């Protein structure tokens, strides 16, 4: 017998139990925690962008301002922040590089490239870019 409701077959619709989702759901699994840390790492990526802009601004305003910036950047608190930021940036890069093959499907001569090749290409590009920047910085300081 139908009561004409969307639930149809019974006039006595069962009382569903909706389990509440804990605020700390992200502690339930290691993968959830890794995901949250990856999301948080975006804040540190943003901080490095701001830091770089501040550095460029200081450098463009002459020797005095640049030295002031360096003195400020040498403070233990700023150094600590930048070390933490570096750790998060590395975590950010590695986790995204490892996920890249899922999002990128590349065909070469009609054949799909294996996931490892895409991950390896990302790491190779990272190493080349890092070496290039390193060469630029070290070369400029000589």
């Amino acid at each position, binding site marked *: 017998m139908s009561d004409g409701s969307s639930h149809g077959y019974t006039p006595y619709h*069962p*009382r*569903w*139990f*909706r*389990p509440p*989702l804990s605020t700390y*759901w*992200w502690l*339930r*699994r290691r*993968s*959830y925690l890794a*995901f949250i840390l990856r*999301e948080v790492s975006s804040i540190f990526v943003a901080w490095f962008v701001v830091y770089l802009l501040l550095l460029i601004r200081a450098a463009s305003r002459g020797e005095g301002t640049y030295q002031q910036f360096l003195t400020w950047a040498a403070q233990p608190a700023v150094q600590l922040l930048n070390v933490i930021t570096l750790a998060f940036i590395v975590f950010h890069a590695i986790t995204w590089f490892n*996920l890249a093959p*899922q*999002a*990128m*499907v590349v065909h070469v001569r*009609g054949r*799909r490239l294996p996931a490892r090749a895409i991950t390896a290409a990302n790491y190779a590009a990272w190493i080349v870019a890092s070496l290039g920047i390193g060469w630029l910085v070290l070369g400029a300081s000589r």
Partner: protein
Amino acid sequence: MADTITMQVTRYRPEDEAQPSVQEYEVPCPRDWVVLDGLNYVKDRLDGTLSYRWSCRMGICGSCGMTVNGEPKLTCATFLADYAPGPIRVEPLHNFPIIRDLVIEMGDFMRKLVRVKPWIVRDAEKPLGDGEYLQTPQELDEYRQFSMCINCMLCYAACPIYGLDPKFIGPAAIAIAQRYNLDSRDEGGPERLELLSEHEGIWGCTFVGECTVVCPKHVDPAGAIQRYKLTAALDSVRSLIMPRSAP
């Protein structure tokens, strides 16, 4: 190895209880018994009031998904002996309302599945006399992985985004949409893109990736969603640069 194992099973009897409770059962634990065998033993020998869904016992029907020791699993493919000496905790799939004991309400998923048009859409059917729509093995390989989905909903149980926002269309529905989008015979891509470009569609996914980890059929819904995002982004750029060519 112990001869028996304790199963801690979620019970919810809406006529008597305001919230679920846990009941323990001692079941045999031979090497070839899966969790579903344990539940069937309870139902047949110990407590006929226990409710749960199952059908094929061989990982095809997708009915027997439950949470086993915190992980979404097909209970027909999860061996009791792997959890020895126990106890083993069996709960309904997370992120769904519970109707009774281990039975969850799946109407939300079913409605979302239909919305993505999981069938081959053609602008115009060719005459029967012209023969079948042919496909090369390479074209089949493009979508084959996504066609393996058995609608077991383990991916929804593993997805915290779906748990937090039930409007999110979810991993399996998007993977199945992608199964048809990548099919060389299908022409329904633009229609599905319109639906899935919404906030509750592909952009709701933040790439936690657990849907892919728990999938018993290696469908990789997370991959399907990220690929879809790329398609949607390229489509937006294309329509921005060449507005007249947009569908």
